[in-house]
């Protein structure tokens, strides 16, 4: 589009601003929070062990599976979790190639968060300083070279809705894991009912994730936002209102669910390693 050129004042230098409030706190907290999650989740995904408790070999212990490892497509060599869909690691898997069940499935929830509208705004500020905060100067090299999400590579953020579809499937899978956590194996190999602290953790996890996932901007668009006539369908209008309610709290649930899923993994990992005991309530 051709418009009259403007002569504008000099752009401020990187991180320079006339703001007098503590504008740097929020991006710093985001940097610390997301950075800690990234480091921990990557470490946990590469462990390939201590991701479950309560198998046939552990009677009386509630069955807990780490959300970072769910679903388990194949068990790593030497491990029998009881959660693997297709059993042991197949022979065609190259012996030299490292295997962890988490690495096969984590790209989907990770992609959902990476392309999430809330997280995009947050990490563009905290990690890339684009800008670090409102009215705070940007790195000089970016200048008019800024491409935003208009061009490659960030134009691929538009894939978000496909990660949403995957995230909804994962809500179902993690809800199933929450239900399974109410069970344990008895000494005779039969299944028994029980509730432990781990059960509560694994039940809360999909609830928090649902509050985040079902408040997604894409979902808000898909259930009704894309239509000019919301009142043409009562179901559409109702769904749009409910998703909007969650969407208005999207940032809150993004953080609650992020810490929730990380804590669920930490809890299962600590119980599996023997550092913590999963206390039975019932």
């Amino acid at each position, binding site marked *: 589009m051709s418009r009259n050129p403007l002569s*504008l004042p000099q752009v401020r230098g990187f991180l320079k601003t006339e703001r*007098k409030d503590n504008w740097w706190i929020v991006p710093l907290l985001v940097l610390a929070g997301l950075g800690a999650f990234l480091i921990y989740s990557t470490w946990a995904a590469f462990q390939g062990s201590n991701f479950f408790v309560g198998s046939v070999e552990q009677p009386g212990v509630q069955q807990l599976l780490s959300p970072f490892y769910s679903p388990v497509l194949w068990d790593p060599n030497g491990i029998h979790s009881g959660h693997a869909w297709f059993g042991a690691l197949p022979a065609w898997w190259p012996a030299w190639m490292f295997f962890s069940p988490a690495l096969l499935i984590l790209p989907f929830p990770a992609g959902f968060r990476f392309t999430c*509208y809330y997280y995009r705004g947050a990490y563009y500020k905290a990690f890339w300083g684009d800008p670090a905060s409102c009215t705070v100067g940007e790195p000089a090299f970016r200048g008019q070279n800024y491409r*935003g999400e208009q061009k490659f590579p960030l134009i691929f953020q538009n894939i978000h809705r496909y990660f949403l579809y995957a995230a909804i499937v994962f809500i179902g899978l993690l809800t199933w894991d929450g239900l399974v956590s109410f069970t344990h194996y008895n000494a005779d190999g039969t299944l028994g009912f029980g509730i432990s602290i781990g059960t509560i953790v694994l039940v809360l996890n999909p609830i928090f994730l649902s509050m985040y996932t079902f408040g997604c901007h894409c979902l808000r*668009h898909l259930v009704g*936002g894309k239509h000019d006539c919301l009142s043409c369908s009562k179901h559409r209008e109702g769904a749009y209102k409910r998703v909007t309610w969650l*969407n208005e709290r999207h940032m809150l649930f993004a953080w609650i669910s992020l810490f929730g899923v990380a804590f669920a993994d930490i809890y299962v990992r600590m119980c599996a390693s023997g550092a913590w005991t999963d206390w039975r309530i019932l």
Partner: protein
Amino acid sequence: MTFEPSVTSSADATRTMQFRIWRGDQSGGAFQTYPMQVSEGMVVLDCVHRIQAELATDLAVRWNCKAGKCGSCSAEINGQPKLMCMTRMDTLPPDAPVTIEPLRSFPSIRDLVTDVSWNFRVKKKIKPFKPRKPDNADGSWTMFQADVDRVQEFRKCIECFLCQDVCHVLRDHHKHDEFVGPRFLMYTAALEMHPLDTEDRLKDLKDNDGIGYCNITKCCTKVCPEHIGITDNAIIPMKERVVDEFYDPITRLFRMFKPKK
């Protein structure tokens, strides 16, 4: 340069504050400091007017309604885009000088006045409202409140251009030639979401208006004096409609089998 206040005391004076006001024009400028006594209930615009009356009679400032409805007195107060008439002095740190600058995304005319006419030129290029044929024999249409709620939120805009000022795409990257800014993405959203409108502006949003340049910092939403959810309710829904139209292969496939309106 520092000035001395001509009035040193008054019955309702509570404290003296320092005001750093940007003075200059297109060729450049600098901050000048003015001391001024601040009374209870004053807003920044009151102080600027008093400085203009007593210390700097040639100070240029644009204002009109003093009620937060005309959008004329937009400025940057302590680095944050705000309406001067709606910024109470008791919300600012009392011990630090108050910094007042013009909008930084538009060319300076003089002192606190900027040339915002670029915005009006942009607005003229957006395809206007094009209603469908009337629903009723008397030439009227039937609409339901649920369908116009979204649009009515955007109609609260007073065109103060604080959102345009704070948007880093314009402010820091100077993409005025490729990006219309949050105000006009929202204006387009109001037209696109209107239940009677039949015009299609999605290609313009993608190619001419540069909606992809928005990287969702939400700064526009934060500074809006009318508290409009610019990012969540206007820009992101438009981004999603653009995805439907141009980027999502499945919706494009579905559209092939859907009858045209």
